[in-house]
């Protein structure tokens, strides 16, 4: 095989051949590459948004629940010590109840709106360290430590602030009073202080009161129905869980956020699967496109191939001559496509993220996506270029020249 001659012929052909065909081929390769990376990155962005929502507003990084058959976590000393683990940003203990909620707008027992929603209590300062609900207030204001008859509710409960379950809501506004009947039989009235709207429907169906208020209702002190823990390095939860166990929380149920995802976890896997399927289809389309382009080129140059063989060029050099052209289309497509993704699309979507029900979605262009897409497109170009070149090169000299 004469590599130098193959390169010479390939680049002379690219340089002096039809510029329109060259531009069109490179454009197709670039679009094929963008297609593969864009789809994967959008799905990656959606999964990221789902995960971010869950961490920021629902589970934080780690959730501790009571041991089986226990209502509360009682090892207060250990819970208080979690804050001392290096890397822990915040710890927030919740009490949880599911009261019957009633709103009687005219106080006449007519047209009364009711429902059962999850009520959690928070220590305001602690909660601000582990979730971002305080940043998601859409009306009114967030709780303060001394609030006793005040409540903040999610927009799916309130019903007037863009929720998707308005037909099930209380239809209340800031300042309205709602009645809560707790599981232990105690009834209290709260004024709606704030309404929050995250991008998580399940969080937006919750209500929050202060820890002091909940302890007075439940008649408990310094216990917790669940504890959320925020760490500085998401992804390293297993290490912290191990550290937490060492503090004496041996029998408690400790989970990381990803274990609690349920539906969203299976949705993430489905997105990953769709992304792979579309990526494979995109790669095959790119490979077939290269195949057709090289096939047409080989057919058009059939006589030239015969002449090259007649003057002594080996089959492998001829194959390499066409494969280099195919690789050139693939590599230029990858370079232009990657540049467009990294320097145009990615910055654009970072500035203008897509508004999905799960959150603000930007492109998640990872090194893995780029690497796999590069390999896929160049391999497709290699295979797509090789087969027509092989077929053309293996034809007999006389058949190539005279048909």
């Amino acid at each position: 095989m004469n590599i130098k001659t193959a390169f010479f012929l390939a680049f002379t052909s690219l340089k002096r051949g039809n510029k329109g065909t060259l531009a069109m081929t490179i454009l197709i390769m670039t679009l094929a590459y963008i297609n593969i990376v864009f789809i994967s990155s959008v799905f990656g962005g959606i999964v990221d948004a789902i995960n971010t929502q869950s961490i920021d507003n629902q589970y934080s990084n780690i959730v501790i629940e009571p041991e089986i058959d226990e209502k509360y976590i009682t090892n207060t000393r250990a819970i208080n010590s979690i804050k001392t683990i290096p890397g822990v940003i915040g710890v927030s203990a919740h009490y949880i109840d599911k009261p019957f909620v009633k709103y009687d707008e005219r106080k006449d027992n007519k047209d009364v709106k009711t429902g059962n929603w999850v009520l959690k209590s928070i220590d305001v300062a602690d909660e601000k360290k582990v979730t971002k609900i305080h940043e998601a207030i859409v009306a009114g204001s967030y709780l303060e430590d001394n609030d006793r008859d005040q409540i903040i509710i999610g927009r799916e409960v309130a019903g007037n602030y863009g929720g998707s379950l308005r037909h099930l809501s209380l239809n209340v506004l800031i300042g309205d009073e709602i009645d809560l009947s707790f599981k232990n039989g105690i009834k209290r009235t709260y004024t709606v202080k704030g309404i929050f709207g995250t991008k998580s429907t399940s969080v937006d169906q919750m209500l929050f009161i202060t820890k002091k208020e909940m302890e007075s209702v439940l008649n408990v002190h310094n216990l917790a129905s669940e504890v959320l823990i925020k760490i500085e390095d998401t992804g390293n939860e297993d290490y912290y869980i191990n550290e937490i166990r060492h503090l004496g929380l041996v029998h408690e149920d400790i989970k990381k956020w990803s274990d609690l995802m349920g539906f969203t976890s299976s949705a993430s896997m489905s997105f990953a699967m769709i992304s792979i399927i579309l990526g494979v289809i995109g790669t095959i389309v790119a490979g077939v496109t290269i195949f057709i382009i090289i096939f047409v080129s080989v057919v058009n140059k059939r006589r030239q191939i015969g002449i090259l063989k007649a003057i002594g060029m080996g089959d492998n050099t001829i194959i390499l001559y066409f494969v280099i052209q195919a690789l050139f289309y693939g590599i230029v497509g990858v370079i232009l496509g990657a540049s467009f993704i990294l320097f145009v699309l990615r910055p654009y979507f970072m500035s203008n993220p897509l508004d999905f029900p799960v959150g603000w979605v930007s492109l998640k262009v990872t090194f893995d996506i780029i690497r796999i897409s590069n390999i896929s497109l160049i391999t497709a170009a290699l295979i797509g270029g090789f087969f027509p070149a092989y077929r053309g090169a293996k034809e007999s000299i006389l058949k190539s020249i005279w048909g």
Partner: protein
Amino acid sequence: MIIEVKNLKKTYEGKVPTHALKNINFNIKKGEFIALMGRSGSGKSTLLHQLGLLDRPSAGKIMIDGTNLMSFSKEQGSKFRLEKLGYVFQSYALLPELTALESVYLPLMLSNIDKKIYIKTASEMLKKVGLGNKLHNLPRELSGGEQQRVAIARALVNNPIILFADEPTANLDSESSKVILELFKKLNKEINQTIIMVTHEPDDKKYVDRVIWLKDGEIQEED
């Protein structure tokens, strides 16, 4: 002898086998300018293809410069064609993207010769065929006769022991044809180049040393 042909046969298989060459025997001496002539279908091009290693005979033996071509593998055949043989085809057979100079130095490049040397050698060869002022012209910028002279320069640049020409003037006007044939004659006389040319033009006889007449796949006569 530069070429020795013994009992050469070429049969195209099929429902009805076609015997294109039947028991051909002849010898060619070094420096001879030979014309293969005959009617259409007489087997003259087929014979040229067998001699030039462009096709494989069904039976018989071809010796070129003492080498038995019948024993060659495909790769050995390519190497032999590159190093020992030169071809000029009926239509100019140039690559449209290569300049005259690039077309001519392509065989030298394939032979892994140093770049400076192959550019110099190819330039000199183009000057020899009268195209020293058109080194960087693409085929579309050359006339038919000029393109054929580029093809001749390419065929000769590796100093082949035999130059094969398959109706090299068939697509040219009479003036260009004359230029090409006189160039062949000149090469034959000046550098003792062995040339085997297929032609159907009776007038071309005056340029050659000997004519081998073929009819129905057999040598009819030599004169």
